[in-house]
């Protein structure tokens, strides 16, 4: 009891300190607590973001060969034969172009993490019907695009264990500016 009271006081002081130093002060008075509890099941239906660690990757898997079929049916019309692009962005190529006046930033030349490919394909593609691909299809088409870029072999299988371990060519091509550099 004593400990929890003391913790509550510490938290309250911490919150007050945060509010005091924030450049956007809160409106006066105690805010109403109107958020409602949400179940783990409901969160799981919304939680589609996949960080580089692969945390949250779903069960399932896909091969390069399966991915080629998914690609032909759902991606090729916009991203072109073998990811060459046109009318939409190229998914392949651009190695060596980043320092030129016309950088071609593709999965192969630029993207630092393979998990981002799974994440973005699942949340946003195909553009006419996002959230429609099965997890197996997303793994498979991710495998195919990685294969087209020469990053994984033709027999590779992508799943929750293998995808985060894929080393992307431009993995070391980024310098974090957060926290900001000193002036």
């Amino acid at each position: 009891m004593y400990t929890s009271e003391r913790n509550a006081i510490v938290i309250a002081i911490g919150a007050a300190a945060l509010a005091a130093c924030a450049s956007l002060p809160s409106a006066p008075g105690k805010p109403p607590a109107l958020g409602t509890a949400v179940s783990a099941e409901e969160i799981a239906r919304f939680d589609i973001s996949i960080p580089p660690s692969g945390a949250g990757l779903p069960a399932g898997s896909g091969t390069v060969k399966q991915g080629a079929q998914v690609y032909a049916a759902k991606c090729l019309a916009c991203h072109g034969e073998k990811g060459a692009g046109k009318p939409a962005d190229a998914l392949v190529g651009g190695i060596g172009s980043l320092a030129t006046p016309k950088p071609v930033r593709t999965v192969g030349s630029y993207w630092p993490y393979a998990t981002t490919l799974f994440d973005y394909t699942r949340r946003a593609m195909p553009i006419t019907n996002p959230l429609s691909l099965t997890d197996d299809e997303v793994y498979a088409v991710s495998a195919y695009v990685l294969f087209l870029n020469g990053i994984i072999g033709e027999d590779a299988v992508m799943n929750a264990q293998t995808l985060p371990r894929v080393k992307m060519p431009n993995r070391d091509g980024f310098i974090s500016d957060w926290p900001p550099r000193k002036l």
Partner: protein
Amino acid sequence: MKSRKGDASPMPQASRGRRDFLTQGAALVTGAASVGIAAGASAQGLAGQPWERVYGAGFTGYGQPSRFEQPVMRHIGRPYGDLAPGTGASLAPIETLEGIITPSGLHNIRSHSGTPDIDPKEHQLLLHGLVARPLKFSVEALSSYPMTTRIYFLECSGNSNRALAPQPAQVPAGAIHGNMACSEWTGVPLRVLLQEAGLRPEAKWLLAEGADSAHMSRSIPVEKALDDALIALYQNGERLRPEQGYPVRLLLPGWEGNMSVKWLRRLKATEEPTHTKDETSKYTDLQPGGRALQFTFEMGVKSVITKPSSTMKLPRSGTYEITGLAWSGAGRIRRVEVSTNGGATWNDAALTGEERPKALVRFRFPWEWSGKEAVLQSRATDEKGQVQPARKAWLAQYSPGNIYHNNSIASWSVGADGSVKNVYV
């Protein structure tokens, strides 16, 4: 707008449609002509335009600009054309606007997968991850919190990338520098919701995700979330426009616009950034050599002359007002200088709105144009002492293919014939 049955009033009623009124107005004019009074003239020779001689239009539920202002439109860029008509940007026509508030209907738009048609009764904001109590908020619930109102600019970090083209584009200022705007925003400080959910100490980032069909997502440092991040519900006094994130958006004052996630449906507290598509493959700034700076959040100190500007023409020599906009993601604008000789000499401009951090400031400078060639520039300094860089100095920081965070000085040349052109100095 149907006429009420049995309404025998001879005067147009507010409840009548505009077409009804115009018909009646024409009848009145015809009637006048039939008794010998020409429309637009008076028997006594009194001055008065035609619109002074007919009854004006009735009330409307939602007002629109004058029909004579129809050319004032956003500059729309659609890199994928009809394939993805809602992907790209629509830039504010800053060359036609005055003051510091951008009308909501002319606010710049950057969208990745079009504008979703969200039913606010069905929308919810989920707050989960490294929190003591995962919570969801309906729009109605969010609307019941005490509100905070602030004026902030929003700028896409790709703004002014058209000024990086090999040749200067001869298009209006807004088509180059209008991927930014300024509104009064009202909502709930994000900090309030984080306190309610009980943010855990190990949480360092928040993944913010939209309910558009791209589910556009960015990682936000917790420091910003606890400082001045706003869960915005209103813009310029009314509910957010659909294109601006209706019914709820994140607003991160002074930071690149892409992070102020529209149509906000989810915030997940995490230890590390998620490295989403839009913070890796996009919105990263290529450096000389080809490595890229990532997580460059704050928008640099910047200004642009909006009048006179590219594609305009000065009709005569004599006195003009040079005016434009200045802003900084770091805080307040302290100073704007104007040069009329391509940067050889600079003079301080008068400022409006400089008391507000992270908001547009209007600057004005009186100029006597002799009729000779001139090059007009503006240079802003913010309260941190940061000075807007010259074009060449800015270019030297980056790889030639970088398209983000161009805050360099813009130049407009004035020819002896008064024509104003975009030039690189």
